[in-house]
C-alpha cells in the first residue's frame, strides 16, 4: 500500500490521528499532522512511497499549530521530532517547506550510523555521481534535470553511506527547487510532477519536484559513487569539466560533510576510500541541455 493509494479523506484523517508511517530509503518516519494545507501536498509528493506497519520507527514527527487559540486562528506551526521543536515556528502558509526541512533535519541531526554529505546523488548505468554543494550552487537544479532525463535519483540533499561501506543509500525524497529554477524545470521537464509554489520563504521562492516512480521503486538499491562532481551554475558558461586532484577533492568534500567528526578515524578512512574510487571534477555550466550532454559523455 503506497501513500498515493489511500483515499484522500482517509489519508487526511489518518494523518491527523494515528499518523502515517512512511519509509524513505533506510528511514521510517511516522508523521502526524492535522493541518489541511499539508495533506494533499504530502500525498502528492510521496505518493509512490510505501506505508509501513510493524517496523521500528526512526522519527516520530509532528507538524501542528502552536497551541493556544482556537485551531482556525492559530497562524503559526511547528515541526517537532519526538515532541522537541526543530526550528522556530513558521507561518502556516509554509507548512510543506517546514515539513521538508524538518525531514532533512531529522536525518542530519540524528542518523549518525551514517556519514552524510550535503549534496545530491544520481545514478545511471555504471555511473553514480555525487554532487556536493549547498543550496544556490546549482546542484538541485542539475540533479532535477538529470533525473528528468533518465538518471535515477538517490537524493538531492543528503548523500549518505555507512562508514566502512562504499555505497550511497537512496532516499528519493522530493527535490527542492528555488527561485528561477522552478520555472526553468517546469519548462525543461513539463511531464514531471511539481508540488505547490511558495513565493516567500526565507530562501526565496520554493517548489518541489516529485521523484520519478522508478527512483522510489529502487530506493533499496544503493550504489557506489564513481564520480564526485562539484557543480557551479555560472551565467554564460559553456559546459566545462575540470579535473580536481583527489587530495583537493577530499578537503572540499569534507567541508560538505554534515557529521564528519562523529566517526573519527573510521570516518576519515571511509571518506578516503570513497574518493580513491572516484574521478573528481569541477563542473561549470549555464545551459541544462549542455550539462545533460556532458554527463552523457562521462565514462
Amino acid at each position, binding site marked *: 500500500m503506497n501513500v498515493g493509494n489511500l483515499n484522500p479523506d482517509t489519508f487526511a484523517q489518518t494523518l491527523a490521528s494515528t499518523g502515517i508511517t512512511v519509509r524513505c530509503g533506510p528511514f521510517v518516519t511516522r508523521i502526524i499532522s492535522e493541518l489541511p494545507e499539508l495533506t494533499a501536498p504530502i500525498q502528492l509528493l510521496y505518493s509512490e512511497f510505501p506505508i509501513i506497519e510493524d517496523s*521500528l520507527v526512526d522519527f516520530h514527527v509532528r507538524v501542528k499549530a502552536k497551541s493556544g487559540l482556537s485551531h482556525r486562528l492559530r497562524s503559526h506551526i511547528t515541526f517537532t521530532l519526538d515532541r522537541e521543536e526543530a526550528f522556530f515556528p513558521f507561518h502556516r502558509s509554509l507548512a510543506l517547506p517546514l515539513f521538508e526541512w524538518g525531514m532533512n533535519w531529522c536525518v542530519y541531526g540524528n542518523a*549518525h550510523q*551514517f556519514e552524510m554529505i550535503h549534496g545530491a546523488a544520481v545514478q545511471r548505468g555504471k555511473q553514480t555521481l555525487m554532487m556536493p554543494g549547498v543550496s544556490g550552487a546549482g546542484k538541485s537544479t542539475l540533479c532535477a534535470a538529470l533525473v528528468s532525463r533518465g538518471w535515477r535519483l538517490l537524493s538531492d540533499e543528503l548523500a549518505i553511506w555507512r562508514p566502512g561501506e562504499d555505497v550511497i543509500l537512496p532516499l528519493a525524497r522530493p527535490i527542492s527547487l528555488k527561485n528561477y529554477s522552478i520555472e526553468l524545470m517546469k519548462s525543461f521537464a513539463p511531464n514531471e510532477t511539481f508540488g505547490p509554489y511558495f513565493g516567500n520563504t526565507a530562501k526565496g521562492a520554493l517548489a518541489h519536484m516529485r521523484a520519478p516512480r522508478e527512483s522510489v521503486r529502487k530506493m533499496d538499491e544503493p550504489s557506489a559513487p564513481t564520480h564526485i562532481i562539484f557543480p557551479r551554475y555560472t551565467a554564460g558558461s559553456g559546459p566545462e569539466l575540470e579535473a580536481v586532484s583527489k587530495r583537493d577533492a577530499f578537503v572540499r568534500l569534507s567541508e560538505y560533510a554534515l557529521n564528519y567528526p562523529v566517526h573519527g578515524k573510521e570516518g576519515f578512512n571511509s571518506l578516503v576510500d570513497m574518493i580513491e574510487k572516484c574521478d573528481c571534477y569541477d563542473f561549470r555550466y549555464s545551459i541544462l541541455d549542455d550539462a545533460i550532454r556532458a554527463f552523457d559523455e562521462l565514462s
Partner: protein
Amino acid sequence: MNYPKSQDRTKAGRALATSQTLLTALKTPHRVTEFSLDEWSLLIRQAQRTKLLSRIAEQSKEHGTFDQLPFKVADTLQGALYMGSNNRRMIDWEIKSIQRALVEVDTPIVLLKGGAYVVAGLPAANGRIANDIDIMVPEPKLLAVEAALLAQGWSEIKFSDYDQRYYRKWSHELPPLRHEMRKTVVDVHHTILPRTSRLKPDTDKLWQHAVDVPGTGVKTLGPQDMVLHSSAHLFQDGEVSFAIRDLVDLVDLLRHFGAEPGFWDGLVDRAYEHQLQRPLYYTLRYGQMLLDLEVPDVAAQAIAAAAPAKPLANMMDRIMPRVLLPDDPNMPSITRGHAASLLYLRSHWLRMPPWLLAGHLTTKAVMQLYASYLQWREEEELEEEDTEEEEAY
C-alpha cells in the same frame, strides 16, 4: 501498546510501568535480547530522551547481545555508539586544551563529574554524552584561571547583567565560558555547591582527599567525595527531570568503588562531614529502588537517620522516581509535569540563602505549595483511571 503490567499496586509502582523496559535494560543488560520490537521502540525513545542510548548500545556490545538484535535496532544503536565515542574523544581533547591554557597559572585542577569519569577511566564514562567540562580550582586562583581562559579562545556566554552579577556574587562559579571555535563550555568552580546553599561542603577536605590521575596532570575528587558531589548535584543542586542517567552514573560509581575495602565504611560519616547526608540518602534509596543497588547493611543503617520526616519521605518516594524517569512519549503525562515543577521549585528553594528564604516563607507561599501537592495527587488519581481506559485501546 502493551506495557508489562506492574505487580506493584502502589501509585508509584503503576506509574513506573512505562519505564520498565528501560530499567530492565539498565539493570540486566543481557535481557535485551528478549525485547519485542514494540518494547525496543519505547526503549529507544526513552533512552534518547534521557541520554542513555549510547550507554545501552555500549552495554549491548559488552554483553555480546548486539549481533542478535533486529537490524534496525542495531543500526540505531550503532549511531549511538558513534556519538558516545565521539563525545568521549571530544572530552579528552577539551581536558587537554584546558590544561594547556592553564599551564602558566600554576594551579591544581580537579575534574568534576563527567570529565572525572572520562579521565579516570571509570565505568560511568562508558556511553556518556556530556557537553560541558566542570573543573574546580582553589578560590584564590579563580580570577587568574578566568583570565587565562579568556585570553586563549574562551569567552563569556552572553547573559544579562543581572545574571552575571548573580553568578559571581551568589553562585559558586564564574559564568560558564564557551570556546569560540569549538563551542564547548567549561564551568570553573571553587566549591561544589552554590555559595548560597544552606549546605556547606567542606572544601578544604575535598582538596585533602583529591586524587592525582596518573599520567594526566589533573586530579579527581576522592571516591567518596566524588559520590557525594554527584549526589549533591543530582538531588540538591541540579535539574532532576529526566535525570535518571545521573543516578545510573552514581550506581556505577558506588559499585566500582564499593569493591574497594573501606569505601562503604566511611561513606556515611563523610557525608555528614560535608553536610551532604540527605542527598546521599536519596542516592542510596533510589539507587536501590530503581536500579537494584546493593547497599551494605552497616551503611544502610547509618544513612537511615538522614532520611527526611515521614510525610516528606513518602512524598519524595512518590514523586522522585516519576520525575527521574521518562514517561510514555506517545502520551506525555501532565501530572509528571506537575511533579517535575514541584521538584524544580524545591531545587530553587534549596539554593536560596536562609535570609532570603525567610522572606519567602510566608504562610501563603507554604499554603500554595501544599495546594499544588494536593492538586497533583488528585490529578494523578484521575490519570490512573484514564491510563486504564487507554490501555484497553
